[in-house]
C-alpha cells in the first residue's frame, strides 16, 4: 500500500511539480532584474489557459506534428519514473537504468525535432538542426557524467546511484564534483537555458527550442511547454540527487520520506536559483562556441571516470 502510494507520488511528481520549478526560475530572474515578475504558479495558469484554447494547425503538417506533443510529454513522464526524486530505495530495475533514461529523453528530442521540420517553416527547420547539433554533442557528456556516478556506486541504476552517500567513499568525492561540472553544462544545454538557448526569446536568429514549437498552439503547445518544464525538472532532480545525495530516503520509513521530500524541495529550489542567477549574469553564447563548452563537459567527465578507479 505504502509502496503503491510512493510510486504514485514518484509518477506524478514530475508532471505536477515541474511547472512550479519553471515558475520559480522565472520569479527569481525577475527579482534579480528588479522586477516584480509573475507568481511562481504562473506556468500552471499558462498551461491551463492553453489547454482550453482553440488550435491552428498548418495544412502541411502530418501526423508527426499532431502526435509529437503527446509522445514528447509521455517520454518525459516515463523518464521521470527512472530517476530518484526523494527515495532511493524505490529501486526501479525495470526502467531506472541511466541509458534508458537518457534514450527515453532522446525519444522526446527526436520527435521534437521532427515536429519542428514538419510544417515546412524555415524557423522550425533550423531550430531542429540546432537542437540536434547541441543534443548530439551533449550526449557524450551526459552519459559519462551519469556513468561516473554509476561506477562509483557499482550499478547503472540511478536509484542505487543516489543511495550511496556523497562521502561514503572518500576518493569518489573529486570524480563526483568533476562529473557534476560536466553534468551541469549538459543540463543547461539539454534544457535550453543560457548560454545555449534563451527560453524567453522569439528572435529568429537565436532561438532553438522556441523555433521548433513555433507552429504549435492550444493544447499541443501546452503539452510542449509542459514537457520542457518536465525535462528541466528531471535534470534538476538528477543533478541534485545523484551528485549531492543528501537526505534522500534510504528506506520506507515515513519520517525519512518526509525528510527526503523536504531536502529534495530545498535542493531543487537552490538549483532553480543557481540557474536564475546564471541566466541573469551571463550572455548567450554564439552558436559555434557551444561545442567547445560541450567538449569541456565531456573532458571533465572523462577525467572524472579516469579518477574513479585510480591505478
Amino acid at each position: 500500500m505504502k509502496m503503491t502510494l510512493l510510486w504514485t507520488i514518484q509518477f506524478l511528481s514530475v508532471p505536477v511539480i515541474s511547472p512550479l520549478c519553471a515558475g520559480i526560475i522565472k520569479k527569481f530572474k525577475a527579482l534579480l532584474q528588479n522586477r516584480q515578475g509573475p507568481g511562481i504558479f504562473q506556468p500552471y495558469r499558462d498551461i491551463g489557459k492553453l489547454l482550453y484554447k482553440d488550435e491552428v494547425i498548418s495544412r502541411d503538417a502530418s501526423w508527426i506534428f499532431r502526435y509529437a506533443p503527446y509522445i514528447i510529454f509521455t517520454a518525459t513522464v516515463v523518464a521521470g519514473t527512472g530517476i530518484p526524486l526523494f527515495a532511493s530505495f524505490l529501486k526501479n530495475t525495470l526502467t531506472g537504468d541511466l541509458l534508458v533514461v537518457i534514450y527515453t529523453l532522446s525519444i522526446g528530442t527526436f520527435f521534437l525535432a521532427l515536429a519542428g521540420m514538419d510544417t515546412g517553416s524555415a524557423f522550425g527547420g533550423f531550430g531542429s538542426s540546432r537542437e540536434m547539433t547541441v543534443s548530439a554533442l551533449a550526449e557524450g557528456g551526459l552519459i559519462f557524467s551519469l556513468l561516473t556516478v554509476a561506477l562509483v556506486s557499482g550499478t547503472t541504476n540511478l536509484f542505487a546511484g543516489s543511495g550511496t552517500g556523497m562521502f561514503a567513499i572518500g576518493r569518489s568525492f573529486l570524480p563526483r564534483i568533476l562529473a557534476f561540472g560536466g553534468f551541469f553544462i549538459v543540463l543547461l544545454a539539454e534544457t535550453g537555458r543560457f548560454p545555449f538557448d534563451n527560453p524567453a526569446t522569439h528572435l529568429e536568429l537565436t532561438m532553438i527550442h522556441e523555433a521548433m514549437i513555433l507552429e504549435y498552439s492550444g493544447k499541443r503547445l501546452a503539452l510542449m511547454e509542459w514537457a520542457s518544464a518536465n525535462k528541466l525538472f528531471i535534470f534538476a532532480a538528477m543533478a541534485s540527487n545523484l551528485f549531492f545525495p543528501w537526505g534522500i530516503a534510504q528506506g520506507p520509513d515515513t519520517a525519512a520520506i518526509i525528510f527526503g521530500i523536504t531536502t529534495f524541495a530545498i535542493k531543487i529550489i537552490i538549483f532553480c536559483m543557481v540557474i536564475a542567477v546564471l541566466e541573469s549574469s551571463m550572455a548567450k553564447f554564439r552558436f559555434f562556441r557551444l561545442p567547445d563548452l560541450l567538449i569541456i563537459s565531456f573532458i571533465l567527465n572523462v577525467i572524472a571516470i579516469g579518477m574513479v578507479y585510480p591505478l
Partner: protein
Amino acid sequence: MDTITNQTGLFVLLLLFSAGALGSLVLRKHDALSNEWSGLFSIAGSLWGLFFALSVIITGHDVSFAVETAFSPLFSLAFHIDRLSAFFIFVVSLIALFSSVYGIGYVKHFYKTYSIGVLGLFYNLFIAAMLLVVSASNGIFFLIAWEIMSVTSYFLVVYDRNDEGNIKAGFLYLIMTHAGTAFIILSFLLFYKYTGSFDFETVRANAALIPLTVKNAVFLLALIGFGTKAGIVPFHIWLPGAHPAAPSHVSALMSGVMIKTGIYMLIRIFLGMLQPVPIWWGLTVLAAGSVSSLLGVLYALTEHDIKRLLAYHSIENIGIILLGLGSALTFSSLGMPSLALLGLIAALFHILNHAVFKSLLFLSAGSVINETHTRNMEEYGGLIRFMPQTAFFFLVGAMAISALPPFNGFFSEWLTFQSLFKGIAVPDFSAKWMFILAAGALAFTGGLALACFVKAFGATFLARPRSPEVAHAKESRLTLRAAMGALAALSFLFGICSGYLIPFLESIGRDLDAFRNTPSFVSVSPEQSITAGGGFASVSAPAFLFIFIAVFIIVSFTVKYLINRSQRVKIGETWDCGTDLTPRMEITATGFARSIILIFKGVLKPSIQKEIEYNDSRSRYLPKTRTVILGISDVYGSYVYKPLREMITRLSLRTKDIQSGNINVYISYIFIALVIALFWVL
C-alpha cells in the same frame, strides 16, 4: 528437428537457391515468370534456412561433413555448422526472406530494361554464397564461397549498368574486396604453413604450433582482409558507393548481411581458433570500432544521397558490433570470460538487429526512390502524405537504428554499452583508457545517429514536396509494404522480446570453446528484465513499453476527453512572416547537417564553394543567384588511396621502360640474364 539438422537439410537449402538461380536464367525471356520463379525459390529457400538454422540452434547438433575433392587433400568441400554458423544462416535467411518478398514487386520496374533472368541468377547465387561462407570449414572452400559472394554481388551492383556511377562503384568494390581477399589468403597460408592444413578445425586444434609473431601477423591480415568486407574505416571506401548502386533489395542484403560475414570470420578466427590472444588485439579492434562508428556516422551526416547515407550508417553499426567484439576479445585476454561472453552477446545481438533495421531502411528508401526516381534527398519532402505506410516503416527503422527504446537497436547498444562500462573497471591501464574512449565514441555515435535520422526522415518525408516528382509518388505495391511491415514488426518484436532472445544468443556464444563453461553475466528475470554485468545494470523492455503506452494513453485520453471538449482545431497556413512560403525556404538536408559538419571540420574537411551572380556587375548589392556548394573531400582517397595508386602507377610506368622498343636492348637483356645466371651458379 533432428531430422533436418544433417547434410540433407543443408543440401536442400542450397538446392532451392540453385534452382532459383538456374530457373530464372532459363526463363529469362519472360520477365514476369522469371521474377516470380526467382522470388518463390528464394523465399522457399529462406524459409527452409530459417527452419534449418533454428533447428541447429535449438538442438545444438552440429552439422559437419566433408566432400573430398579429387584435386588435392588440402581442398575439401567441408561444412561445419555449429550454433555460430547457424546464427548467421538465420540472419541471412531472415533478411533474404523479406528482401525476396520485396523483390517480387520491386523488380517490376526493371522489366524490359534489363534481363530479369540474370538478376534472379545472381541474386539467388549471392544468397547461396553467403550461406556457404558461413558454413564452410575448409579455408580454400571458404575462399571460393567468399569470392563467389563478392563476384555475384559485384554483378548485382553493376546490374543497372547504364549508370556510369554504378560501374565505377562496382569497380571500386571488386578491387577492394579482391585486395581484401589477398590479405585473407595470406592469413590462411600462414595457418597452412604452421598447421599444415586449411581445415579450420585442424587449425584450431593446432593453433598452439603457430608462433606468436605469426599470430599477430594473422590478426592484422585478417582484420584488414575481413575488415575490408565489413567496411571498417579506412577500408570502407567501396561501401558507400557499392551499396547504393545495387537494386534496393540487394542493398538491403549487402548492408544487412553481407558485411556481417566479415564479422563472422573475425569471431570465428579470433575467438574460435586462435584463443588465447594477446590483449592488444582486443584493444585494436576496439579502436577500429570506435573510429568506424564515429566516422561512419559523421560521414552519414554529410550525405544527401539517401542510400549513401544508409550505407555510411552500416559502417557506423559495424563499428558498434566491433566494440562488442573488441571488448569480448579484451576481456578474454584479461581472463574475464564472463564479461567476454557479454561482449560477444552484445555483438551478436547487434548483428541481428542491424540486419533487421538496416534492411528495413534500405527497403523503404528503395520504395521512395522507386517513386521519385532520384536518390537525392534534397528533391524529396512531404512524402509522408503520399506514402504514409512507407514513411511509418522508415520511422520505425530510424528509431531502431538511433537506438531509441523500445526498438531492438536500443537493447543491443545497451548491452554493448554495459560491456564497455564494465571494461572501464578493469585493472589494466591501457585497456581501461581504451574502454573509456570506446564508450565515449559510442555515446557520441548515438547522439549523432539521432541527428542524422532526424535529418533523413525530416528531409524525406516531412514538410512540403521540393520537387514535382514527389507529387506523383504513390504508396508502393503490396509485396513491398508487406516486406517492410514485417521487418518493422520484427524490429519492434526483437526489442520487446530481447529477454527471450538473449538466452539464445548466449547459447550461441557458449558454443565457442572459450566460453564453454563460462558463468554468465547476463541474466533474464521472470519479468523479462535483462541484467547485465553481474547486477551492474538492468532493463526491461516489456515494462518500458507498458509504462510508455500507459502514460501515453492516459495523457491523450485526459487531454482529449477530460480537459477540452469545446475547442476547435482550425487548419491554417504555416506562419510565413508575411511572404509566400515556398519549399525553397525549408531547411535542406545539407543545411540541416551544416552546423555539425562545421563543428567537425577538422575531421571532415568540408569545402564550401560560393558562387554569386549579380544583376548589375557594377553595383554589387543585389545578387541575382547565389549558390553554395558544401562538399566533403574524400580524405582517405586523397591521403591513403590516391598516393598508393599513384605510387603503383608510377612503378608501372617505370616498368614499362623495360619495353623500350629497341631490339638491341632486348637482346642485351638476354645476354645479361645469361651472364648473370652463369656467374651466379658457378
